[in-house]
């Protein structure tokens, strides 16, 4: 791989190229999330969740996608079922989320054991942190579920996964990583780009759909 002098300098200071690449990719992923929000109109759970899920998916590699999506959907699903069961007990917010997290942790453990007994160790081989990240997004999900209902929370979860997938494909694309390592300064362009996005007052793409009836007025 061809390094730029900047990259070479950083690597010479004993910073692993991998770490550097990830740090430089974070602004790119974050910009992607802000683009999706302001121009496309896909909300997701803010900017932190889609970004962190993107990197969690990457950390699931080599089988990142398959296991990542499976873990994401099962976390959301179990979170939903648990909330449904807990509703009748009328618990306060934090204890309720704590129980939800516990149930999801047990379920994950169960899935790992099940996978092990079928000799599918791909998932068990994954480092614990991406798994924990996925589990903690439950809080976001439950919070939205309480405020805006299950339907809205599900839509936001799907949107989050969507943005994360786009981000995942971008940052796991070898030519793109090579490009970033060869021209690391290009990442600085995300700042003026975000300034533009931050001043963008046009309609979002989803708003063209939402207001279709008003737009087709004579």
């Amino acid at each position, binding site marked *: 791989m061809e390094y730029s002098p900047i990259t070479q300098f950083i690597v010479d200071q004993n910073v692993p190229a991998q770490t550097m690449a990830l740090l430089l990719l974070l602004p790119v992923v974050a910009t992607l999330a802000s683009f999706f929000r*302001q121009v496309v*109109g896909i909300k997701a759970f803010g900017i932190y969740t889609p970004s962190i899920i993107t990197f969690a998916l990457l950390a699931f590699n080599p089988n990142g996608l398959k296991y990542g999506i499976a873990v994401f959907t099962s976390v959301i699903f179990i979170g939903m079922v648990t909330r449904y069961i807990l509703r009748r007990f*009328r618990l*306060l*917010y934090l204890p309720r989320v704590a129980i939800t997290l516990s149930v999801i942790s047990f379920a994950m453990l169960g899935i790992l054991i099940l996978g092990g007994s079928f000799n599918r160790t791909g998932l068990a081989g994954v480092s614990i942190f991406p798994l924990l990240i996925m589990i903690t997004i439950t809080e976001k999900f439950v*919070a939205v579920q*309480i*405020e*805006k*209902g299950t339907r809205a929370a599900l839509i936001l979860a799907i949107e989050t996964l969507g943005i994360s997938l786009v981000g995942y494909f971008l940052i796991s694309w070898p030519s793109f990583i090579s490009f970033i390592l060869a021209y690391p300064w290009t990442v600085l362009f995300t700042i003026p780009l975000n300034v533009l996005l931050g*001043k*963008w*007052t*046009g*309609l*979002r793409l989803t*708003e*063209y759909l*939402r*207001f*279709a*009836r*008003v*737009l*087709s*007025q*004579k």
Partner: protein
Amino acid sequence: MFALLKNSRELLGMNERNLTYVRPLNKRRGREFADNKLIAKRLLRKNGLPVPALITRIRTHAELENFNWETLPESFALKPNRGFGGEGILIVYGRKRNRTDAWVKASGSIVTTEDLKAHIRNILDGSFSLTNTPDIAFFEERLKLLKLFKPYAYRGIPDIRVIVFNRVPVMAMLRLPTRDSDGKANLQQGAIGTGIDLATGTTTSAVVGKSHIIEYVPKTRLALSGIRIPYWNEILRIAVESQAVSGLGFLGADIAIDRDRGPVLLELNARPGLSIQIANLSGLKSRLNRVKGLKVKTTERGILLGKNLFGGEIEEEIEELSGKRVIGSIEKVKLIGKDGKEIIVDAKIDTGADSTSIDTELARELGFGDAIRLFEDRIAGKDVLNELSKSERETLFSGIPDLTDTIPVKSSHGTSYRPMFRIDLSIDQVIIPAKVSAIDRTGLEYPVIIGRKNLRKFLVDVSK
């Protein structure tokens, strides 16, 4: 395509709402004010604006434990101080009979003191507040539904959202709770929103949920357009004055109409939703641009500006000149039958017809069932028009109660004879005594056609 581009420049999107209006115009103080219902309530009342009366508030868990439940009135609304989107609101309609510790909700389900306590604990812990921070719970008077809105609202109180900018009301919508919205007047939760003509306070088009256009109240024949909202000027005045009190430059005021008290200001929104544009089939951006930079000195001037800029004022002018009211080719008409029985239906205003006719089924509902049965029995297949002379007909139909006249009707099946009854029509709030014939109109689009004889006081605008 050209229209689409032009229209997209008239619409206000989320980005622009936040960047151009909410952020620069609604400063922290104003947003605090809008988000804190108790502070807003106190200040608005001090400035002479009508708000729902506060019964009591509960600030801490200790206050909750020591609370005397006997002091609560028969009915009330329990709300979180910093709630949003109508979440966390619990409304009870009365005490359960023979019990001091239970109340009844609109759905008929029972709420006990324990339920209320659990709900208040959740409020205090911040489950419904904007940032999940601890909150205050309060009880306030329950508003009573206006009779006019009864057929349109499902278990809840409709309210009127008015967007005010620069002291000018720029757009308004009536929000009707539905079964889907569980009695809440919140569009995101599935309520109906109807656009309002700012000049007259009459509803125009309607949307259900976030973007689905509808014409009738779901599963009924009740049209959502043409509802004339009472106290319209007062509603606009409250909305505009609340802007001055709140310090918000761009706001959505929610105003409900109480059966006894009239318009009452429910809530102020520093970030009003954008679906109001779909309900009105019109863009906010172009309206805001027209108001921007104007120096509006008084509330009255602001209201006048809003009405003239964004209302169908021409119609009112014609009405003033001719002394006749302008109605459309389809109007909502109230039929007042025997013993004051009232039915509201959509009627076709037909200047080609001589007299008014209504569907037989409607005539039965209006209390003429017996008369129609007798009439049919006596005709019993006879060709009344050709076989009988005038005097024979008169004897045949004599003694039928409520029958005021008869009328020959030509149709593809030949001629027939129909009964006529005397009822009152209420068209555009004018009462007109009328002689109407009862005819089988099943399968036809409108159950009533209003003919020339009853249209002398009106001008018909076919584009309406």
